[in-house]
Every structure is written in C-alpha cells, then in structure tokens.
C-alpha cells in the first residue's frame, strides 16, 4: 500500500513538469503583444514599450522567462497581475473559496439526484421509473448550462422574485444570502454532473445486481432493500467514487459560462477576464492552480479506489 502510494506520487512529478511546459507554452501562442496592450494610450512610444518589456522580462529568451516563472511558482509566488496590480496568489486565494463553495454545492446536488436515480433505474430496469430516470438524465446532459441558467433566472428571480438573479455574498458574511446567491448556479452545474453520475451508477448497479454474490445475499433471506443498498451498492460505488472525484475536479476548475451568467466572482470569471486582458501571469496562475487541483484529486480518486476496494488494499 505505502509502496504503491510512493510510486503513484512519483508519477505525479513528471506530470507536473510537463504541465508547466504546456501552461507556459500556451501563453506564448496567444495572439497580441502584452506590452502593447499594457501601454494603453502610450502604445506608440517605443521607449515605453521597451520599458514595459524590460520590467516584465519579455525581452529575455523564452527559456529564461520560463525558469524565472517556475522558480517563483515553486516559492509560492505566482507573479503579479499586470492589470489588477495584485499578486496572482492573492487573487487565486480570493476566488478559490467562491468556486469551492459553488463546486461543493453543485456536487452535493449531483450526488443527491444522480446516485439514487441511478439505483432506482437499475432496480426498476425497463419500467416507467427507468425511462423517467433516463429522461431526466438526458435532459440534464443535453440542456446547455447557459440556457438553463437564464431560464432559472427568468423564473425564480424575475417571475417569482424568490432568488437574487446575480451576485455573490461570501458564506461567512451571511450564510442564508450566500446560499440564495449560489443555489441556482450550483443547480445548473449540478444537473450535468448528476446525469453523468446517474448513468454510471445505473450501469454499475446493473452489473452488480447480476452477480452471483447478490444471489447469495438473496438466498440468505436478506430483504431486497439490504440486497440492493448494501450488497450491490457497495460494489457498484467503487467505479462511481472514482468518477465522482474527477467530476468534482471539473467543477472546481470553474464554470466559465455559469459564473458569467450569474456574475459569480469565481475562477471561471477570473480566467476569462484575464484572457481578455492578456493578463498572462493571472492566466498562468489560474490554469496552474486548476491543474494542481486536478492532479491532487485524481490522486485522491486513486487512494479512495484503494480504500473502498478490498481486493486492491492488500496488493
């Protein structure tokens, strides 16, 4: 187990190095000269441009820029936003809790809808329940987030006036108001994930329910409830947990469109603004942070997979 963990951590390192190359490299492919953009009205003055370039080390060779950047990153310094004039790490730390809250709520909604619906449709296979659950999943997968978001705002905010249409209040300032501002975007994000979870739970449950050990459980005289919720589900959840962790990672990476629609100041909005402003350090920082979250979560997914699968635990 510990050997495995060490080996797994060893695999993470090269992944991170390659990731840093890609993130840094992508920046260089972006059209437009950042110096020209930053210079603003003084863009005609070559002296100003040269000064900006020197300040930002844009005049140095690319590899030097990379090592300068990665050296700082390793010390926790993600650079300085060219536009907002704030350390990128501060920006990230400011936006991360917002996105984390949104992602957690969305994931909770997805779990509460997706897993029971998947179980229901597997247990009641080929009945009206199954068709209904599949129709819900199809709706969740095929409805564009921006459309669902706008429809929800129209209905709950404009029509009924129950929820604020946009904005964000931090959880620690006013929990109720915070939930009111995030419930709609969380639902919009959660439906897509719920559909994915539902389909996978259904497939895994169908497999589990056809296994010999389920017949053994029935032969023992266990109630159908125990057979389904204990014997079948325990095995069916093994692949679903892995998938769920990765889906949670995707939620944490920020939801560009949804955050735009509900004007939630999270990761998605931060990165979009940074791209439009050619604020390279912010883009790099956000993308790197997202990638780190992903690597950490896929590691967590593997560890969870080990933990809940006794066949791998002793290996």
């Amino acid at each position: 187990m510990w050997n495995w963990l060490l080996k797994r951590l060893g695999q993470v390192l090269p992944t991170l190095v390659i990731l840093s190359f890609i993130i840094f490299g992508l920046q260089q492919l972006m059209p437009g000269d950042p110096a020209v953009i930053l210079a603003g009205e003084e863009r005609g003055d070559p002296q100003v441009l040269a000064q900006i370039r020197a300040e930002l080390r844009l005049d140095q060779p690319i590899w030097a820029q990379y090592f300068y950047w990665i050296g700082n990153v390793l010390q926790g310094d993600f650079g300085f936003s060219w536009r907002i004039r704030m350390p990128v790490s501060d920006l990230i730390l400011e936006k991360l809790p917002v996105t984390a809250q949104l992602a957690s709520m969305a994931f909770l909604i997805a779990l509460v809808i997706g897993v029971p619906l998947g179980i229901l449709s597997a247990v009641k296979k080929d009945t009206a329940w199954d068709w209904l659950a599949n129709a819900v999943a199809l709706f969740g997968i095929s409805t564009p987030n921006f459309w669902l978001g706008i429809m929800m705002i129209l209905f709950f905010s404009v029509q009924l006036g129950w929820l604020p249409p946009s904005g964000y209040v931090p959880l620690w300032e006013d929990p109720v108001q915070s939930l009111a501002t995030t419930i709609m975007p969380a639902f919009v994000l959660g439906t897509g994930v719920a559909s994915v979870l539902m389909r996978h739970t259904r497939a895994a449950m169908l497999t589990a329910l056809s296994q010999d050990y389920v017949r053994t459980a029935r032969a023992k005289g266990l109630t159908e409830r125990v057979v389904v919720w204990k014997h079948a589900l325990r095995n069916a959840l093994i692949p679903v947990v892995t998938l769920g962790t990765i889906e949670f990672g995707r939620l944490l990476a920020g939801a560009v469109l949804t955050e735009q629609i509900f004007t939630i100041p999270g990761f998605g909005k931060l990165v979009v603004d940074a791209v439009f402003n050619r604020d390279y350090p912010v883009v790099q920082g956000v993308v790197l942070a997202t990638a780190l979250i992903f690597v950490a979560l896929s590691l967590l997914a593997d560890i969870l997979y080990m933990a809940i699968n006794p066949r791998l635990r002793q290996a």
Partner: protein
Amino acid sequence: MSPPMLELTQVSVEFPTDRGRLRPVDGISFRVEAGKTLAVVGESGCGKSVTALAVMGLLPQGAEIGGGIRLDGEELLALTPDQRRARRGGAMAMVFQEPMTSLNPAFTAGEQVAEALRLHQGLAPDAAFARAVEMFARVRIPEPERRARNYPHQLSGGMRQRVMIAMALACRPRLLIADEPTTALDVTVQAQILALIDELKTESGTAVVLITHDLGVVADHADEVVVMYAGRVAERAPAASLFARPQHPYTIGLLGAAPRLEGGVARLASIEGTVPDLLHPPPGCRFAPRCPFALDRCAQQPPLAAILPGHDVACWRAPLDTLLEAAA
C-alpha cells in the same frame, strides 16, 4: 416412514421469452426425508438448477411456478414473498456452484456468515461474528479467527466453498440445497467438501438435495436419485437400486457415459443426438428422438410408474433390464 422434509408435487416452471413460453421444468415430483440426501442428476439444461431455485424462491421475476412445494409440511407456494424470504437462509439454505463469485468481494467472509445469523437468530453483531468463527471451525477452515477477517479474494476456492457451507448451515436449516457444490473445485477438495456435507447432515438431520451431473458423487453420497431429462423426471429410485438396475434408456446411457477407473476398459459410451429445444419439445417422451428403444407409442408421454418398490421410471418399455438381458 417419516413425513418428508421436502416434497415437490407436479412442479412446473415457465418463463416468457422473446421466442415463446419456455418450460424448463415440467411436472417434477420427488420427496426428501430428514437426514437423507437426494441427488438430482441430468445434463446441463435439464432443469436441475431451475428446480432448486424454484424451491428457494429465487427464480427471476416473470417466472411462473405451478404445482406444490412443501417444506416440513408447509406449502411454500402459498406464502407471501416476505414469508418466503424469511424461510431462506433460515429453514432452508443453498450452496451454489461458483465459490469464486458467490461471496461478496466487499465484505469479509466472517461478516457474510454473521449477517445470516443476525437476520435469522437476532444475534448482536459481536455474538454473530463469534458464532461465524465457530462455524468456520466446524467446516474445518484452519485459523478460523483469522480467516473470518479475510476478504474472499484472500481465500482459495475450496476455502470459499467451505465459507458458503458455513453460511448455509449457520442457522441450522432443515433443508440444504447444494447445486453442483464441487464442480469448480479440485478433485481432492471435492471429496472433502462432500464428506463435510455428509457429516453435517448426519449431525443435524438436515435433508440434502444434491444437484450434480457426476454419477460418482451420486454413488458415494446419495440415498435417493432423481434422473431428470429435458425438464421431466425420467427415473426416480434409491441409489443402490438405480445403479444395480437402471431402467430408463437415458439413465442407462448416462451410466454408460460415465468414466470408470476400474475395469481397465477405457471405452466411453455416448448418447447419440442432442438435448431437445425446450421451446419446441418433441411430443410424448422427450428422450424418444435419441432413444434406441423408441416405439410409436413413445409419441405419448409415459407415466412415471413403479417398476420395483420405490423405483419409478417413465418409460413405456420398462423394465428395460429384462429386455437388455434378452438381447445379450
């Protein structure tokens, strides 16, 4: 004669399928007494396992059961699904063919045995686990304390089948159905498992239904034998009588097709033809198309009639042994 522990009267099972109604079991009757072993013998697809699942009430949804199944005098088919469920694992238990896949990989072996004890005997988790460890010792699993905490993948096939037997016998069932319990195991382990079932049967007076296609197993362990062919009983007899004077052409074929180590002649007889399609069974005797003794009359189903005391056969030409002697 003591009343039977298990009595099947004209049991039929029907499944609706895409290609029509399938009747894998068609009017089966037999009885098993307490402390005795009845072997159900036949080729794959003859309805042995379906019969077992019908007794347990484990047939898939949509299956229709006709006839009567009485356990210790109680008509099982008249019970509600919940009452039937309560009998499973308590009054009657089953051991399956596949020890490798019949245990849940996510729980320890001990937990899975303890679960039945908690359910049927209302034991607390700790007490149930302690009883499970005792059962492990009884089915002679070495280091029962440690093995009970193992997951199925840490146990060998023979050990897993012992766990299945421990699970089945934990609540002292009056009936044990063992569906090919040793088919997936090594020969040496086979003998141990069957000896174990015999021993526990004698100790606790459990009635055993042993489903097998292995006639060697039947000869060594069964008191009574039911030979099934294409969903019907071909012959039903005490084991000694069946082996001494087999009457049905199918039984004779089966005995001829069984490999024998003694005798030195390594010749294997085979039964010509194939098992009939149960969606379109032949009229009358289902073995007739493959039977070397078939007559025109075999287009009608022969009744299961006594040829000797306790020895019944469904064949118009029985007793066949006199016929065979005349031919020899």
